[in-house]
């Protein structure tokens, strides 16, 4: 019972602290802007810990954060090995190959109405295939190691990236294309100096969607066959052994990696599309 009371008191105290910061001049400062979400995060963890321990929730249903943290601390080498396998070898190469080829295909589609009628429906068709059906097939084709995971990621990120890039290539204004024509610009010059820069906001929308999809794809693909390590492998085997703290540890790593990947893409976006109204400050 004490756990519950302490947790509630700490939670309310932190809440009050945040309200006070939000109303004080500190809220305008950098420190204040960092502290508010940090305090909120701590409050959620404290409340979680207190509720789980106070109400004696079964470990299998929801382990307390302290147990998850202890598990993370105790199994860093395993977690790193899993993350390296799933993220560095599966998700990121798949993300790069999938997004890169989608941009190239989008340019080809944009150039030729024939391909537009032929390739877009195929892309659409592949995107509509359920991943749980596609993943085992790709594992059969490309083997148990990371190659099949990268292939699943390629299949997942390709279509959103393709659709966004095709839309982006049409984003330049007619007048701007006319201007290029009056200067006697070639197709390639128009593409490089006008249409690709104008497409960047769309490209980054696609990249942000793809960055989250890539992680999901790489993890889920491991459910259908993998070496004896990898985040998806670990999650599926630990669930079977009721090692839920390890499952949660993997989830924490996945959430962290996903946010990091998304953050990197957003950062590059801000740098590349500084001119777009959504990025001007």
């Amino acid at each position, binding site marked *: 019972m004490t756990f519950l009371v302490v947790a509630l008191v700490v939670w309310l105290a932190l809440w009050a602290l945040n309200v006070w910061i939000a109303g004080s001049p500190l809220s305008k400062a950098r420190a204040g802007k960092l502290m508010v979400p940090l305090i909120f995060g701590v409050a959620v963890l404290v409340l979680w810990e207190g509720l789980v321990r106070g109400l004696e929730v079964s470990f299998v249903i929801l382990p307390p954060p302290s147990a998850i943290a202890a598990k993370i601390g105790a199994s860093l080498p395993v977690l790193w090995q899993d993350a390296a396998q799933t993220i560095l070898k599966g998700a990121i190469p798949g993300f790069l190959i999938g997004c890169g080829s989608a941009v190239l295909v989008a340019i080809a589609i944009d150039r030729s109405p024939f391909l537009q009628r032929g390739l877009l429906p195929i892309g659409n068709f592949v995107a509509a295939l359920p991943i749980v059906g596609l993943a085992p097939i790709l594992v059969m084709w490309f083997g148990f190691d990371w190659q099949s995971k990268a292939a699943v990621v390629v299949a997942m990120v390709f279509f959103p990236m393709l659709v966004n890039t095709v839309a982006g290539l049409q984003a330049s*204004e007619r*007048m*701007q294309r*006319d*201007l*290029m*024509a*009056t*200067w*006697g*610009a070639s197709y390639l*010059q128009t593409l490089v*100096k*006008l249409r690709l*820069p*104008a497409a*960047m906001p769309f490209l980054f929308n696609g990249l942000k969607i793809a960055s989250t999809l890539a992680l999901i794809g790489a993890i889920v693909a491991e459910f259908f066959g993998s070496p004896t390590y990898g985040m998806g492998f670990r999650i599926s085997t630990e669930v079977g052994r009721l090692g839920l703290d390890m499952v949660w540890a993997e989830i924490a790593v996945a959430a962290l990696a996903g946010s990091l990947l998304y953050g990197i893409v957003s950062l590059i976006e801000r740098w590349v*599309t*500084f*001119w*777009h109204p959504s990025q*001007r400050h």
Partner: protein
Amino acid sequence: MKDMASQPVIEAKGLNLVFQTADGPVQALKDVNLTINQGDFVSFIGPSGCGKTTFLRAIAALETPTSGTLRVNGMTPDEARRKRAYGYVFQAAGLYPWRTIAGNIKLPLEIMGFSKAEQDERTERVLELVELKGFGKKFPWQLSGGMQQRASIARALAFDADILLMDEPFGALDEIVRDRLNEETLKLWARTGKTIGFVTHSIPEAVYLSTKIVVMSPRPGRITDVIDSPLPKERPLDIRDSREFIEIAHRVREGLRAGHHED
């Protein structure tokens, strides 16, 4: 009555242009005959749908005439386009937001393969010409509409084409800015000796700027009157209160009205 030595730069003979639309064919230009000489400042005036913009776009090879002949510097418009015979200024500035003002002006120069040093030199020169010196490092969205439009004129001037085609370049600007830019356009024309084709909705603007005013009317788009302006080349703004100015403006208005009556 004008300079007899001047060369025809743009010649249209029996020009027709039909757009195929969902509602059937639309005759945008019907039997247009016009000669524009070297160094002329020609305004095209008329209500919407009279084909003035279409004619300008046809000169620029942005539209293809259905029949008739159109020569630019003795070439077809498309050949002239490839030879970079003209600079085009649209109603909106159309600057690329990811490039600075100087970067925008350099864009046509990059495309045409000017050397780096020449790009810089020309950019400085045209920025001075449109009175934007010192704004080269700004981005378009950091400037006012009038300044953006001046930058787009600088961009059209940078590669020194003989012909400048301007499609309602000041249409979106307020009267005061417009007056100033009109004055500057005249100065620019006097300094550079370019041939200018200028589309406008405004009678005073057309009369103030032009050596030749082409009055057009809609449905089908055609020329109803061509007025050679007797106004001197030097034109202070208050010339707009002179008797001659008012007489020409009156004739333009009559021409526009006559075109409308036939509806």
